[in-house]
């Protein structure tokens, strides 16, 4: 292969991949509105996202699987713990994790902030994200139950 051909190979390969990527990005923007229920993106949810960021929750917890791996994933935390469960933990982590060898900092989050944070986590839990994470998947649990029943 000559250097000129190698150069054109580089240009064409890059443009093909970038073209596909940009086209799909435009389409993703179109579809993400429904997949994430953007209609439910209220002021409280947005304020809750700011609370999540203000206290740097994401460097210990993952959300949608991204972030720190030090504490449980928060994608479906609302389904697991409910609003009250989340509020209790954020308010008094020192008491809730008193006997745990891994602690959560008490950051003195206000009640209003906790309410917004819970709205945000509720909204996140409703995103249609191909049923991830597996440990919180209803479908996986239903499958397990069916398996158990069929083996009785």
């Amino acid at each position, binding site marked *: 292969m000559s250097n000129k051909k190698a150069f054109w190979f580089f240009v064409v390969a890059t443009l093909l991949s970038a073209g*596909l990527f940009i086209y799909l990005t435009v389409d993703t923007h179109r579809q993400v509105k429904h997949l994430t229920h953007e209609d439910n993106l209220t002021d409280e949810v947005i304020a809750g996202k700011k609370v999540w960021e203000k206290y740097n929750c994401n*460097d*210990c917890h993952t959300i949608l699987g991204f972030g*720190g791996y030090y504490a449980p994933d928060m994608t479906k935390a609302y389904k697991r713990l409910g609003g009250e469960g989340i509020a209790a933990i954020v308010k008094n982590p020192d008491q809730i994790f008193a006997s745990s060898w891994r602690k959560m900092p008490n950051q003195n989050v206000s009640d209003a902030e906790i309410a917004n944070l819970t709205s945000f986590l509720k909204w996140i839990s409703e995103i249609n994200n191909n049923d991830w994470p597996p440990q919180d998947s209803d479908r996986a649990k239903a499958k397990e139950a069916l398996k158990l029943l069929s083996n009785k």
Partner: protein
Amino acid sequence: MQYKTQGIARSYFTVALLLFALQVVFGLYLGLSYFAAIPQNIVNVFPFATARAFHTNLLVLWLLLGFMGGAYFITPEETKSEIYSTKLAYLQLILLVGTGVTALVGFLFGWNQGRPLLEIPRPLDFVVVIGALIFLFNIGMTMIKARNWTAIQGTLLGGLVFLAVMYLFGMPFYKNAAIDWYYWWWVIHLWVEGAWELITAALMAFVLLKITGVERRVVEKWLYVEMGLFLFTGIAGTGHHYYWLGAPKYWLWVGGIFSSLEPVPIVLMVYDTWNHVKERREQIKNPLTFVYAVGCSIYHLLGAGVWGLIHTLPQINYYTHGSQVTVSHGHLAFFGAYALLNLTLFYFAFPQFERVERYDEKRGRIGFWTMSLSMLGMGLAFGVAGVVQTYLERVLGMDYMATQSYMRLWFQIVFVFGLAFLIGVIITAYDLLKLSPAKEAAA
């Protein structure tokens, strides 16, 4: 060193080495936190999250300073002219290091954007942009004024502009968290599997050209082919991060197919590095530089290529996503691809700063092998912890903390390897900064 302004790189590399050591110290604290019970009153003041922000931001900062120093080092030789402005280069270094220090102190007091790896508060983002613009202007002007274009220069400049442009996508506040992560990956993925690969390819091509004496035409041909393949697989390969964030289903196909091909250019890079070394025309002056260059390409393939490939398919990633498997991949890939690349360049440049033609390699070799083997140990231990987590938590549905207790032993092993790694880093940094001439040469 043929040009005076290449010496600018020395300050960049020195700061980078110190930050590298500091990064590893915070890494050890993270490692400790994974298995030891840190008291609540310490956690309240200095949580894991803050230490992680230190660890990852120091990583990004030292690697970027290394790349920038690398650009200041190779541009004069490639363009056959001095850097446009030495003052601007030092101003930029002060600006970026100042921003870094301010950000780290800020993290301690909760001044934080709250987005992993992009924690630097937004006002400081603008200072970073100014620093980047000064840098691009300085390098760009040097190249434009010299009018001595080469493929290596073009690739380097292209990679640096690509890097700077992608940073902008991480700056806005996105209301929708799914869109936020979508563009977060434009920064992170398109850096490490796009822009940084271009910079790596250019810097590595330069070092190989100089130490092997292989014809420029041959090196540049490989450079084009590798870049084409890196960007072809890497750009659409971003899709492997879009499986579970609320994006359309076709990303499972696009991400799976393109990212499975991502190891191809790395295999090619190992092959051509090996070939260039085999067909070298220059005498080997400092074998350690070769060890670093070949070691970097092999480790790059292992950490980024193989470790990436094993969990990139959606069928596997469904279970491993966001687990310690990712941590294992992250450590091996960043060390293999980018830390070793920077160190290869440092070992090429420092003897020239010191005007030492042949240096004593003993200490440097101990440093290389201590770092490389202990990082491999860390990567493997994180990997086992990841498999345990995947199976117990993701497949069997065991509680998060119950699973973590089964992983504790592996975190202890990570910590021991981490200590060894820190020793390797200290030996390497000391060796580079206090390079001594080889005994025969001195005699």
